[in-house]
């Protein structure tokens, strides 16, 4: 069976989900059924079939599961959004069409993703520009204390969604070049005596710092891991000049924290960077140093930037009466947890959860964006939520599989980067909603309501498919040659 036929078959569960989901929601609200709303499902399926035919003609060898998985997630999102607000679902369907157009445009104009390498600095600059846009006077917009949105005339969008792709492209191309150089020093490690000296100095340094600054347990552990990582880096005598860019990226992540004041998106970007760094250099020590530096910086900002601080407070004490009352306080996370508890093992069923308060307001703030996972858990229970996570895991697995089969370093790093950043985005928002980490406002890829999110993630999917098509084409050719 060809890859494309498998893809088409993969769309069958999507159609089942769409049909069953819409039918269930429609059944529960008999009073406002209209033919227009019922056609969303059909329309959505039509788009999927069109996209499939497009992939069949343009990228015949691409991974057959990525698109059906993305469509499944999007269908899931569409049904949930429809259930929350029919008008929003109509807009989301439109955005899906625009996303699909961008998806096709990416595939048409970018026949070979290696072309991106040539423009890496332009792309990096564009990515950075996108990131700072929300802080620019006139067009920037502050949402809940974080600077994530841009208002351009009637259009409001979240540039970070696009910036994540630009920055991954840049990092993939940059680390392809410098990754080897960063670790070439492994051939001539420090002599044993000097290594001992280094370890001693590091241990002494940690002790002195802990004493001087009176650090708590968490900070001490962080510092210790940092010291171990640093020693492990230094014993290989790396050429220091290559660390400049890495420190620059760390600095940028910190600036982002300060600038857009959003812990979640900083974590997403920096995590994606560390994933690429690890794959490119095979040095856990670099990841250790980077991660501890990031967490250290985050802890510092958590105590100094009031917005970040309040996010951490609400995370730690969601039921504190003062925080519950406060504007932008813990009401959202508390309601999220209550909604999940209400869902239980099997959930309330599509369309059955409590969303509207008798006064006409919503009990869950941002139910269609940040908290959509809580609504899903409320209606479909632990099983539904776990199924959704499994869907993402399968998507991530196919993304990494694409990286595995890719022939060259850039392709591998690009696929790894795009996949990791998507996985991290899922972790950041679902982790926020389930109180694993502080709740911050990023979207659940393909599922949340949001034009920027759906368009950016469709482009991300297009890039993954292009990489995949090239990789599998090469392999196919190679195998053909052997036979």
């Amino acid at each position, binding site marked *: 069976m060809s890859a494309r036929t498998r893809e088409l078959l993969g769309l069958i569960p999507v159609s089942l989900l769409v049909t069953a989901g819409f039918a269930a929601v429609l059944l529960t609200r008999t009073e406002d059924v209209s033919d227009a709303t019922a056609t969303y499902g059909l329309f959505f399926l039509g788009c999927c079939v069109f996209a499939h035919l497009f992939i069949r003609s343009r990228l015949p060898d691409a991974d057959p599961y990525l698109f059906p998985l993305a469509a499944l997630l999007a269908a899931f999102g569409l049904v949930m959004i429809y259930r929350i607000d029919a008008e929003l679902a109509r807009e989301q369907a439109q955005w899906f069409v625009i996303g699909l157009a961008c998806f096709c445009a990416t595939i048409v104009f970018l026949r070979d993703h290696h072309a991106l390498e040539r423009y890496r600095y332009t792309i990096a600059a564009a990515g950075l520009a996108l990131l700072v846009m929300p802080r620019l006077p006139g067009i920037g917009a502050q949402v809940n204390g974080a600077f994530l949105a841009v208002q351009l005339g009637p259009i409001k969008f979240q540039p970070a969604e696009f910036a994540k792709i630009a920055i991954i492209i840049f990092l993939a191309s940059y680390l392809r070049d410098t990754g080897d150089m960063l670790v070439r020093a492994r051939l001539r490690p420090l002599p044993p005596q000097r290594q001992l000296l280094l370890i001693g100095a590091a241990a002494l340094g940690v002790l002195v710092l802990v004493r001087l600054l009176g650090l708590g347990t968490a900070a001490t552990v962080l510092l210790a891991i940092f010291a171990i990582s640093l020693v492990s880096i230094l014993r290989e005598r790396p050429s220091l000049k290559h660390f400049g860019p890495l420190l620059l990226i760390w600095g940028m992540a910190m600036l982002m924290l300060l600038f857009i004041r959003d812990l979640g998106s900083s974590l997403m970007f920096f995590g994606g960077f560390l994933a690429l760094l690890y794959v490119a250099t095979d040095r856990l020590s670099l990841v250790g140093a980077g991660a501890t530096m990031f967490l250290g910086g985050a802890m510092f900002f958590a105590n100094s930037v009031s917005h970040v601080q309040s996010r951490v407070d609400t995370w730690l004490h969601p039921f504190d009466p003062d925080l519950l009352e406060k504007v932008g306080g813990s009401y959202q996370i508390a309601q999220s947890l*209550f909604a999940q*508890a*209400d869902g239980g093992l099997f959930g309330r069923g599509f369309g059955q959860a409590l969303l509207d308060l008798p006064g006409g307001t919503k009990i869950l703030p941002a139910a269609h964006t940040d908290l959509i996972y809580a609504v899903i858990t409320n209606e479909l229970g632990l099983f539904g939520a776990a199924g959704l996570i499994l869907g993402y*895991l399968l998507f991530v697995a196919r993304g990494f599989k694409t990286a595995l089969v890719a022939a060259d370093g850039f392709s591998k790093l690009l696929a790894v980067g795009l996949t990791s950043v998507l996985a991290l985005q*899922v972790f950041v928002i*679902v982790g926020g909603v389930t109180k694993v980490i502080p709740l911050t406002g990023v979207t659940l890829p393909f599922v949340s309501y949001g034009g920027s999110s759906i368009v950016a993630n469709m482009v991300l999917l297009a890039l993954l498919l292009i990489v995949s098509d090239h990789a599998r084409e090469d392999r196919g050719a190679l195998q053909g040659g052997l036979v």
Partner: protein
Amino acid sequence: MNRQIVQLFGLCTLLFAALVAFTSWWTVLGAKDLETNANNRRPLIEEQRIPRGLILARDGSVLARSVGRGSGSRRTFTRTYPAGPLFSHAIGYNFISKGRAGLERSRNDQLVGKESEFGSIFSQLQSKDREGQDVTTTLDPRGQRAALAALGGRKGSIVAMEPQTGRVRVMVSVPEYNPNDVPTRFKELSLLNRATQSQYPPGSTFKVVTAAAALDSGKFNPQSIVDGSSPRPVSGVPLANSGGQDFGPISLTDALTNSVNTVWAQVGERLGRGTLVNYMQRFGFNQDPPLDYPDSQMSASGVRDERGRVLDGDGGFDVGRVAIGQGGSEGAILVSPLQMAMVAAAVGNGGKLMRPALTEKVVGKDGRVKERVEPEEQSTVMSEKAAGMLAEMMGNVVREGTGTAAALSGIDVAGKTGTAEVDNATANQAWFIGFAPIDRPRMAVAVTIERTQGQGGTEAAPLAKRVLEALIGGGGG
């Protein structure tokens, strides 16, 4: 590079597993805590969407019903109380903004039709909406109206119950309130249910408890002669009879008829604290009455020290003064009107105390009876013989003693009056407890009025008469 990619995938799997683990915690393992969290308004909002069942009087008249507003998923229900203030304290109220009280609270699970987990899955499969069940109370509108009218705005309480079944026919507390006003005028309303929550000195009505202990323990009989001179030292401090009257040697029957303090104080001293407390406990003292009413809206009757704690037999209180419904600094007897109605009912039912009940039955929307509250014995207080003697003695009180104002024509009434001095002897707590008819009691009653200038016999006994008339007829009516 491929090894690192596989490791990275492993890390992603771990991260996602953490997400599923946390979701499992919130949805299943830790869900109970979240559902009962005080900040969680979901249960309240959910219940607002359920049409609560009706609360009905004994005769089927509606005391509380739910009225729907809006349509579809926005449809909510609020409570209205057609009877207004008439049943206020007994029924209570249920409003999302103010919570719930009274029977609305104690019968909430049935009123909202709460089902077991299995049952709820079953009804979900049938896609049935949750519906409340109807609660039929034991309350009698006629008696309730008569009691409210009898008190006529004076602060106090009247409780009436059937001795053989424990069914509460009347529960009135004045000031009453209109439950329909709860959402708007909550702060102005007097929500204290004097029938179950107030703790008053019982005065001489408590001599019924002392007499029950005296007769049933076999240490006394109605003809036993005790010195009724006044004053007499009790616990080293002189105790006087009402009006300082000196009765000389007198039988227990006459001592109850004339409410002779010195006699009953001596009886109490001779019985001892242990015996008295034992009989009090048989009557249901020292614990919240087992009524289907919220625990937070009931209080236990008993001997309480100055800090309000209920003392048991070793409390060291002045047993002579407690025996006549008073007390000292070590502890004084305080009772609720419901408890005194239970005392009268136990005597009227041949010594068997029946468990008090406000609910007769609970009926589902399909007409099936979900629960029928059958009469149940709470305790055997005394032998039938002792109860018969005590009933005769109490009959004398109404025939020729302090309680003549409670007499009904054609029906023999048994009773006991009480007058307890309060506010440094500037006012009285007036009491009457009793039952009728004596030979086959159909109703027991307790009446009390706060801070009045009159006596139990003149103030409270006529009210008991009016309530008994309304409930069991007799007299000119």
